[in-house]
């Protein structure tokens, strides 16, 4: 299945893109998107514990199941305000 993957802040810098449609295996969960990112850039490993995921504009748990067409965002520590 295909999802729209969005990266922000430091994740965007490490990943080298801000938005990409990616193919993921069926039964993928939110944090699985990190695996493909780590293959591109091993520095993502250091960030594993700091990253949160949002699916379709809502924070989800790491093991939230993904569906075809989902918009999945990798959310580094926020610093608004």
């Amino acid at each position, binding site marked *: 299945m295909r999802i729209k993957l969005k990266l922000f802040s430091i994740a965007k810098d490490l990943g080298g893109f801000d938005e990409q449609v990616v193919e993921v295996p069926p039964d993928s969960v939110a944090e699985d998107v990190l695996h493909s990112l780590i293959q591109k850039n091993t520095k993502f490993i250091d960030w594993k514990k700091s990253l949160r995921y949002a699916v379709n504009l809502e924070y989800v748990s790491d093991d939230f199941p993904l569906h075809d067409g989902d918009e999945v965002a990798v959310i580094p520590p*926020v610093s*608004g*305000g």
Partner: protein
Amino acid sequence: MHEITRNRIDVENVIRSVVSPEAGAVNVFIGTTRNHSSGRTVTSLEYEAYEPMATRMLDMIIREAWNQWDVKNISVVHRIGRVGIGEASVVIAVSSSHRDEAFRASRFLIDRLKDGVPIWKREFFDDGSVEWSLHSHAQKTETEAG
């Protein structure tokens, strides 16, 4: 009202949007950009947002504040893009009949905003380096500003 804007925030206008002849108390929180970070000199800042999600979350936390306190009006405006030193990056205004509610709701809103709304700050230092401000527990670094 809430808004994510690339324009300079008109603080007076945000305040005006909550003032009511029925509510005698207004509390305003303003976050302004600072000229230093972790002991280094910052020359300018840039904010980026995951806009549709940030908008959705602002809407949600405003509704939470509404449900929790007897407040009259709430406005939250966050600026994104390049922001000069000393300028407002966020303005929160709450009006209520009694001051306690305005203070509490205003504090709640900025705490919640800083805690989870997907907005990121990037600092430009005088030595030419540029860094995302990342104050997570995992990433330690100094205490959160503002």
